[in-house]
């Protein structure tokens, strides 16, 4: 896509063979795609989702069957069936881990992210024919999503989403509908990787509506409608059939997720990504007013639908960042002069830049970054020690807790799933949907701590408390002063109590 005839029209590299081999127009996309790789590859794992994802995959490989229950946590489960719609992502991640450990997990995640942005870059170039502006738009889209690029099932959905955007963009601007026929196949993968597959329907639905309305003919939208129908049917090709749709609907309407989980909170400027998102919306609106081109109806529908998703929930900003790039590039393209034909190649400088990009790519690889003296200490590790209970987990491995439930800090449950199960089951692990709302209200009352904390711990037959010294500080102080509990361990991060 990058080597389209529209890009760098008339650029005939002069001078050495090197200049012909490495023109500037190849360095721009390389820089953006390498940047998309370097960020997630060099960031230590902080989000706990990957741990239960890996453990789920390990469980399925060991037992040779689908995981449709929760063997990992000890809090009472929700009634009804468990729709483990992420089962394929769990197997993929575990397979990658089996190949090369956590280093490979980080590298694979970074590769998936780089591929996502490469696809969106391709879509932006197709829509606008402006490579450098496309790189700028994609880089901004990447920055919008930066906090949501950790190793976890949702991340595997990004390249598929990128394919959807590219396929529709090619159909819109090149009248080439061939890629649309690939989408139902990709949807089968998406529906088994993560519950965000409905975003693919939205991409196609907006395109179908946009085409039908702008051409005033339903027939004109036939390719999109056919692809959409295929994708709707493809989403049912899961071990749960329509159950995956039930899962998506229940996640969206779960009051605990809606009201108590920060990631699902409505976007506001109190979040860094929220402030950045609103700035991007303001920038886009100004561009739309000042640009010399009008966006197509499909683009307007995309912006409205994914803008609404992003404004409704912080975690949806990532989709906004991916879908806004082609439109932003077109708008920028109408304002900025097209100048690549006059730019002179500097072969030596290009080689220096190319080498620097390769060097940074290599330095970001998890196998090498621990040896990089320039990186701060906390960035050299594979796992974020600030977010992961490494020391207390090691202690609990060698000193198993007594019988009874182990009440654990919520954000640490995932790591205990991975590192300590089946020695003990953490109370909860962040998969909100697998426990009833009352469990979460009780969890919050205990950690608050509410006046009922003792009776709740008794009711859940908790024998051991593994608390975060900061987040659960009030509770830790009360427990320390209570003669019914005895402290058995403490470090800078965690404190452990057992019944006296």
């Amino acid at each position: 896509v990058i080597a389209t005839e529209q890009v760098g029209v008339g650029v005939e590299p002069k001078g050495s063979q090197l200049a012909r081999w490495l023109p500037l127009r190849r360095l721009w996309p390389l820089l953006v795609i390498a940047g998309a790789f370097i960020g997630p590859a060099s960031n230590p794992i902080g989000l706990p989702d990957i741990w239960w994802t890996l453990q789920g995959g390990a469980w399925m490989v060991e037992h040779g069957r689908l995981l449709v229950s929760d063997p990992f946590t000890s809090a009472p489960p929700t009634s009804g069936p468990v729709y483990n719609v992420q089962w394929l992502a769990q197997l993929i991640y575990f397979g990658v881990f089996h190949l090369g450990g956590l280093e490979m997990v980080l590298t694979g995640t970074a590769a998936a992210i780089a591929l996502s942005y490469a696809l969106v870059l391709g879509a932006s170039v197709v829509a606008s024919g402006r490579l450098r502006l496309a790189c700028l738009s994609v880089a901004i889209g990447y920055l919008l999503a930066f906090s949501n690029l950790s190793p976890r099932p949702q991340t595997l959905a990004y390249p598929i989403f990128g394919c959807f955007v590219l396929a529709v963009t090619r159909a819109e601007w090149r009248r080439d509908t061939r890629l649309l026929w690939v989408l139902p196949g990709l949807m089968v993968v998406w529906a088994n990787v993560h519950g965000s597959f409905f975003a693919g329907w939205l991409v196609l639905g907006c395109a179908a509506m946009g085409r039908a309305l702008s051409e005033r003919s339903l027939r004109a939208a036939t390719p999109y409608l056919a692809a959409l129908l295929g994708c709707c049917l493809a989403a049912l090709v899961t071990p749960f059939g329509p159950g995956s749709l039930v899962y998506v609907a229940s996640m969206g309407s779960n009051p605990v997720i809606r009201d108590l989980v920060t990631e699902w909170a409505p976007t506001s400027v109190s979040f860094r990504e929220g402030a950045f998102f609103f700035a991007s919306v303001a920038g886009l609106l100004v561009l739309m007013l000042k640009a010399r081109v009008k966006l197509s109806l499909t683009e307007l529908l995309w912006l409205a639908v994914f803008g609404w998703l992003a404004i409704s929930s912080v975690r949806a900003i990532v989709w906004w960042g991916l879908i806004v790039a082609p439109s932003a590039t077109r708008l920028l393209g109408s304002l900025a002069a097209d100048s690549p034909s006059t730019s002179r190649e500097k072969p030596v400088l290009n080689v220096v830049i190319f080498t620097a990009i390769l060097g940074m790519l290599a330095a970001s690889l998890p196998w090498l970054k621990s040896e990089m003296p320039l990186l701060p200490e906390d960035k050299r590790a594979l796992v974020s020690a600030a977010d992961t209970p490494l020391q207390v987990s090691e202690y609990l491995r060698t000193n198993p807790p007594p019988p009874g439930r182990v009440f654990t800090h919520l954000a640490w449950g995932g790591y205990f799933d991975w590192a300590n199960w089946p020695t003990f089951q953490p109370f909860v692990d962040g998969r909100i949907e697998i426990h009833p709302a009352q469990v979460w209200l009780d969890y919050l009352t205990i950690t608050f701590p509410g006046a009922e904390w003792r009776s709740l711990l008794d009711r859940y037959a908790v024998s051991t408390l593994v608390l975060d010294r900061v987040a659960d500080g009030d509770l830790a102080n009360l427990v320390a002063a209570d003669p019914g509990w005895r402290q058995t361990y403490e470090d800078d991060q965690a404190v452990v109590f057992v019944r006296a």
Partner: protein
Amino acid sequence: VRRRVRGALLATLAVLPMLGPLLWEHALPRLRLISDAGLAAVTPVEQPLNVRAFAGQWELLLVLAWFGLAYAQQRAPLWELVLVLLGASLGLARLGNLWLTAVLYVPALASRLVAAEASLQPIGRRGLLVACAAVGLCLGSVASVLASRPPGLPSEAARVLASEPGQATVFTNRPWAGAVQQAMGPNRPVLGAGDLSSEDALDYLRVSLAHANWDALLRQHGVDLVVLDAADAQAAAAAEMRASPDWQVAFDRDGILVAHRVRA
């Protein structure tokens, strides 16, 4: 001139619905560029704006209305753009800034409405459209004000409060603070009436949610009389009050609990 007056009137009516929640704050409108996390936990006007709040949805609608008109008319003067962006930023930072957002939006919105009205044909339809929009916005404003009105304190509870002796601080459900202050007279301090510091707001929240140290926190603030929303926001604290031997319930009906300290 008439068209401009109509545009300004319509724009003013359009911004009113988002001001409903501010009307019941019993405080002068103020500007804060950063929302305070402690205060945001107890009062919606201190929260950064989001689309789950009606005011957030309305502000979004106004921005989109201005943008839609400007986009369709292919005209967006710089002064309007600056006013809208500045107003939106202030509102996003803190819901309590919406009064200023409204002030900034009115001229920009009026300018677009005037241009839109001029393009409407035939002339007879203009008046009807403007009138319909004005009536709709008036109804919307009234509905917004009524919907955001905090629940009142029943007269029976107010009578019980008036008969409570002592000079110590009163802890109350924040939306009732004004009514409680009125019932107790100006000399009795009421925690929650008027301004709260960030730390006081967090203590207010801890007591309301029945923190394990709720009684110690009340002592710390010198409270010996409480007026709680026992049906909803302070149900957990009300349950603790009923069970505590240090507190005696004086009134417990219709979701309101009045209790005073009996043991020092």
